[in-house]
């Protein structure tokens, strides 16, 4: 990530450590498919909590307890039994709206993404949704999304027990103010600058007078990730575990 701390930790470790702190003390974290950094963060939270939270890694039958078919994830969230989930977006805008569908007129789009998956629902019912998008550019962080797969905020009369709490990118961490429906810059990752964040962000955001540097992961956090989490992670993400943690299954 930067020249100052070449061997201390890797970018992925920093991001996972930041996400683990965002997770906090909860009962159940669910992580979508193909999300190795959120998975690392969740397993780190579990390692810190001596088995709490439950971590469901979707797409891995071994790491989910579902036995009621594909609906159980959503039913479980509807019951209030999923505390943290991760979402991303082809576009994310300054009101926390996410777009997983298309760019341009939805009837005649100029680009198409896979689709909204469960976001149009989960964004409303999971208390802590962490937006995770490593590519931090004006292409991804836009003033207004072309298509709202799920809105960042809702009118007061709309039943909503969840929503975005933060957005983490390769450059910085934003928190989300649900009342103001705006992001606030919390910290800039080591090796990156405020100016760089401003120039690469397509939406307006709040920020403190002095923007802190994202804290580096502690020695204990790094030890847990490398010794406890990496072997667990390798079952689902062997290439990632090998590349980031140098872990190879026996």
């Amino acid at each position, binding site marked *: 990530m930067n020249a100052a701390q070449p061997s201390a930790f890797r970018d992925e470790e920093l991001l996972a450590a930041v996400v683990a702190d965002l997770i906090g003390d909860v009962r159940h974290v669910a992580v979508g498919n193909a999300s190795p950094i959120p998975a690392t963060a969740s397993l780190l939270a579990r390692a810190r909590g001596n088995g709490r939270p439950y971590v469901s890694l979707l797409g891995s039958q071994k790491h989910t307890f*579902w036995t009621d078919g*594909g*609906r159980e994830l959503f039913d479980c969230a509807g019951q209030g039994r999923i505390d943290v989930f991760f979402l991303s977006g082809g576009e994310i805008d300054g009101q926390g709206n996410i777009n997983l569908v298309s760019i341009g007129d939805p*009837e005649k789009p100029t680009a*198409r993404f896979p*689709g*909204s998956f469960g976001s149009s629902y989960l964004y409303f019912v999971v208390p802590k949704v962490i937006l995770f998008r490593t590519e931090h550019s004006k292409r991804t962080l836009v003033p207004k999304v072309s298509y709202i*797969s799920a809105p960042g905020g809702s009118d007061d*009369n*709309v039943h909503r027990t969840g929503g975005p709490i933060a957005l983490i990118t390769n450059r910085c961490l934003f928190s989300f103010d649900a009342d103001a429906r705006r992001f606030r810059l919390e910290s800039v990752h080591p090796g990156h600058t405020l100016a760089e964040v401003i120039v690469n962000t397509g939406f307006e955001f709040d920020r403190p007078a002095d923007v802190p540097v994202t804290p580096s992961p502690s020695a204990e956090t790094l030890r847990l990730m490398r010794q406890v989490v990496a072997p667990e992670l390798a079952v689902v993400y062997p290439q990632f575990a090998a590349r980031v943690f140098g872990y190879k299954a026996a």
Partner: protein
Amino acid sequence: MPTVARSLDDALAAIPDGCVLAVPRESSGVAMAATRALIRRGIKRLTLVALPTSSLQADLLIGAGCVETLETSAVSLGEFGAAPRFTAAILKGSIRMKDATCPALHAAFQASEKGVPFMPLRGLIGSDVLKNRPDWKVVDNPFGDDDPIVLLPAIRPDVALFHAPMADHEGNVWVGRQRELVTMAHAAEKTIVTVETLHDGNLLEDKTLAAGTLPGFYVDTVAVVERGCWPLPLPEYYAWDVEHLKEYVALAATDEGFEKYLDKYVHERRAA
């Protein structure tokens, strides 16, 4: 009474042009051999409903011109990238797309399973998913106070088609924990299942197996097709054919490449 078909083509005879065809996501057992057989037969004008997402199956059917309308929550080849024929068709406007969200599809199938005209669902309000679905309605929750909630009309497919590990001679199908397949069969008018193998004895008479069994009562036809999900996985039985998917992604990037793929893997009955 369900029948065990003599051939895959026999089993698929009950899937006509223009029907509403329900299929599952790839982690639940996608009937890929059957999909290739349908393309060979030249099936047309399908309304394909993928519960709740699809990958190679939708991409192949779209690329081969079999699909008129697609209703699902996402089409993606996952780690292999975007679904090229789906993306091309959307950009060309050659299929009608009804974008949904996963729990909405689950609920709409459950509505048919329960014989009710609609199911409520939280979320969605303020999204363009909802805005682009004039067939979904927002009502005021009669048990609440100024509490808007979405109602989804029931989805009743003409045919449900999927692949499972095994069936018995009575047409009972073991689906294990993939219970959306049970709901799909309950919701559909007809259900056609391909399976890896026929189980001797009645699945319902073994209390452990019965717990994961779709009763033959809901099944019209079973056909035995070994590795019927190939090149997709049948979870807990076999994995993705990674090399094949890479070849697909490379070929399907262009119209001409996709035709080559069809010639090589679909029309030649290879591995079907």
